[in-house]
């Protein structure tokens, strides 16, 4: 390879060479930071929900009138909603899939220092699994007698629960969870696992910790003023949007309440991902624009270098260079500058990621990301020299005899 002549020639064109390298350095820094952050933010992004979310409606409602009899209200709500044509099943609920709140911990033993496992509890009635459309993996679903329906003051804890497939795997590895006991809190009574259902998405928090499907279903409908259940409603294919109004009307038949929101679970899912998604998208768009600009810049600089060296190219051709060796010369030259820029860029990236994470302490940088970005930029740069270099190869060797 012609490293030596290229290096010697670069020595004579320091400024332009440096310009290319610095450009590559900054581009790879931005691209590495942007993609590392994006990959980190989009980790576990848009995972399968395990739900027919387009056909499940979620209603959030509260009572402001303390005189309302909640027990009756809930029974009425469920009956009224069920009678609406198009509604298939309904269950009162607390947590909403895609929007589950702060995770709880469950334990396999009652010891003080037992290891806790993150999960979200989903409290529903006996129809809950039908609303969510869950598949039974092992054991059985709840029966009516196991469901606790009570005000918060009088509620007794549930004695049985079902757990999701992933939860089962984490808690019991390959053993069957059926009949095993679980502690839903420290110093609580043990509950028995009677079944395992197919995975569905809990919410952003556990999703961020890679535990998207860790859920436990409790057969209970508990009410309290200021904290009464919401409803999840399974509806006929495609009819969700048209049922918002009938459902709202049915609920407003009980005075003293307001409806905070009614939506398809699809929208809840969008909300779960949209922050991360749009941040990732912005970063990616910005860095792609940057790569494009840098690519054009490199192409421009190379074509300037080539115009300046027309004569030199002719001489080389006259002295026996084939067209390909002219192209190769520029690709090798550019690659040397690029690789130098990439090495400097890697250092700069490390510096920046250090500065950016000084506050939070956890690094987002992944070296494989930096490597991919480097290779990508290298390829882009080869593409950027390709056209000008092809033009260079067309320089006729006869120009050497055209003096003046």
């Amino acid at each position, binding site marked *: 390879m012609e490293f030596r002549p290229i290096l010697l020639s670069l020595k004579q064109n320091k*400024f*332009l060479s440096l*310009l290319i390298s*610095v*450009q590559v350095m*900054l*581009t790879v*820094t*931005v691209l590495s*930071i*942007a993609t590392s*952050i994006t990959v980190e933010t989009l980790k576990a992004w848009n995972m399968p929900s395990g739900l027919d979310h387009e056909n499940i409606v979620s209603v959030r409602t*509260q009572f*402001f*009138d*303390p*005189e309302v009899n909640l027990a009756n209200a809930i029974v009425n709500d469920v009956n009224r909603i069920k009678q609406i044509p198009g509604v298939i099943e309904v269950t009162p609920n607390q947590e909403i899939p895609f929007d589950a709140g702060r995770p709880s911990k469950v334990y396999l033993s009652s010891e003080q220092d037992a290891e806790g496992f993150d999960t979200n509890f989903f409290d529903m009635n006996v129809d809950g699994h039908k609303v969510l459309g869950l598949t039974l993996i092992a054991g059985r679903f709840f029966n009516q007698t196991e469901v606790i329906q009570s005000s918060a003051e009088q509620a007794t804890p549930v004695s049985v629960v079902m757990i999701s497939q992933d939860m089962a795997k984490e808690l019991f590895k390959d053993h069957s969870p059926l009949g095993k006991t679980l502690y839903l809190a420290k110093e609580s009574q043990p509950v028995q696992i009677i079944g395992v259902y197919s995975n569905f998405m809990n919410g952003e928090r556990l999703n961020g910790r890679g535990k998207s499907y860790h859920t436990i279903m409790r057969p209970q409908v508990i009410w309290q*003023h*200021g904290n009464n259940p919401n409803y999840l409603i399974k509806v006929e294919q495609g009819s969700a949007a048209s049922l918002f109004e009938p459902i709202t009307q049915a609920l*407003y038949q009980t005075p*003293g*309440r*307001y*409806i*905070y929101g009614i939506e398809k679970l699809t*929208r809840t899912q*969008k*909300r779960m991902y*949209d*922050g991360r998604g*749009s941040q990732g998208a*912005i*970063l990616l768009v*910005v*860095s792609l*624009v*940057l790569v494009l*600009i*840098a690519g*054009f*810049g490199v192409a*421009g*600089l190379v*074509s*300037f270098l080539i*115009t*300046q060296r027309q*004569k030199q190219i002719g001489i080389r051709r006259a002295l026996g260079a084939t067209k390909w060796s002219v192209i190769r010369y520029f690709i090798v030259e550019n690659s040397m500058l690029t690789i130098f820029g990439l090495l400097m860029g890697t250092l700069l990236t490390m510096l*920046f990621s250090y*500065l*950016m994470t*000084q*506050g939070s302490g956890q690094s987002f940088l992944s070296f494989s990301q930096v490597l991919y970005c480097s290779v990508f930029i290298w390829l882009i740069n080869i593409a950027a020299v390709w056209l000008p270099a092809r033009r260079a190869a067309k320089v006729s060797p006869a120009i050497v005899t055209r*003096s*003046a």
Partner: protein
Amino acid sequence: MLVYNFTLALRSLRERIQLTILMVLAIAIGIGLLITVQTMSYQGDKIPLAHKADKIFFVQADNRDIGAEPIVRQPFMTYLTYRDANNIINADTPASKHTTVWKSDVILNSFDQDVRPFRASTVVTNNNFFSMFDVPFQYGGAWSESADRGAEPVVILTKESNDLLFGGKNSVGQQLRVNALTVTVVGVMAEWNLGRRFYDESYRMGRKDTAFIPDTFAIKNNINRRERLDCLPQDRDKQTAYRTKDVDGLINSECTFVRLWAELPDPNLADQYREFLTQYVMSQKELGRFPRELNNYVTSLYTMVTLRNELNGSRNPLAYIAPLFFIVCLLNAIGILLAKFMRKSKEVSLRRALGAKKWVLMTQYLFEVLIVGVLGGIVGTALAYLGLQGMLHVQIYQSDYAVTAQALSHAFALDWVMMAKSILTAMVSSVVIGLYPIWRVVNIAPASQLKSQ
């Protein structure tokens, strides 16, 4: 001479118009992103209520356990107990006014059956709130001091909630219900462009509070507390009850949840106020309260916001990326400029041979880069405008359309300051990138290029 040089510069720009366009675009794109990001942080860092931010003070006194965690970030320390807030308000202090703030969610429901009830994010405060924070009114005004004393059932609505409840009509004197309690409207706020909502320390820009009720009324009727209660150990197990049920227990407890704001007639009185606060806490210590060492803070709104800004400053990765991006764009422009100028080597050496002085050439090329810079700045400002609109819409999308473009637009607004900054940055950087190419071109020896090639 200058005019001649200017026309030469213009001609040269027109000569290879594609290169000129490329250069302008390179600068414009870089400026566009830079100004987009800078405008967001400039608007985001703006001090709300700037004209009196040095006279409004946030009052904090640490009433936590001895074993509690040390204070690392002062503005995020706990608030005051209900008791202490009231004691301080009633004491003889250098402050001309005090107001307290805590938040609740209430359901506003009209007597009109056609209007569906809705949940309002609610500020629980006293009448000083409205004068201290310059709240503008569309109809009516703040409730009276006697309303505070008498725990009167009054409410102040915002434009949004008045639109929903009363169709935007003047509703002063009308009645509605807060949860199940009948209250009378005393005022409807006009559009209140606060920037960031500092008074509850959320510093939110989007969703606004939509109802304001007197603290005395809220306590008397046990309106729920949407606040984190920070209690001394003896009260910790009653926290849940305190939030929703046991209001009498709460106001006599050692649980903090009240923000206290003081307005001083003169910023210099802050030290005097601190003195007072120390005395107050010392006197309470004698009663066996305030178990920790003294951690009192009397912080101006200005300082509070500044501390907050510092904390937020490094969050946005775009804040790091934009300057690098800009530099890459400038490097590109240098490349193009160099190519353009070096093509003219012959012309320059001829001019030099014909007697052009260096500085004359220099001004011609300076004109050329300056024109490019101004154009880049103008196009860049336009791009920044588009970028900000884009960011605004991303923000609206992220909030799941819960905030309106109108409520957020001030945070994404390009004002004259930023426009000037944009064009100035473009001009300065165009000169900077022009330095090397111009130096190269004016140092071409006269007639050196005239012999062979």
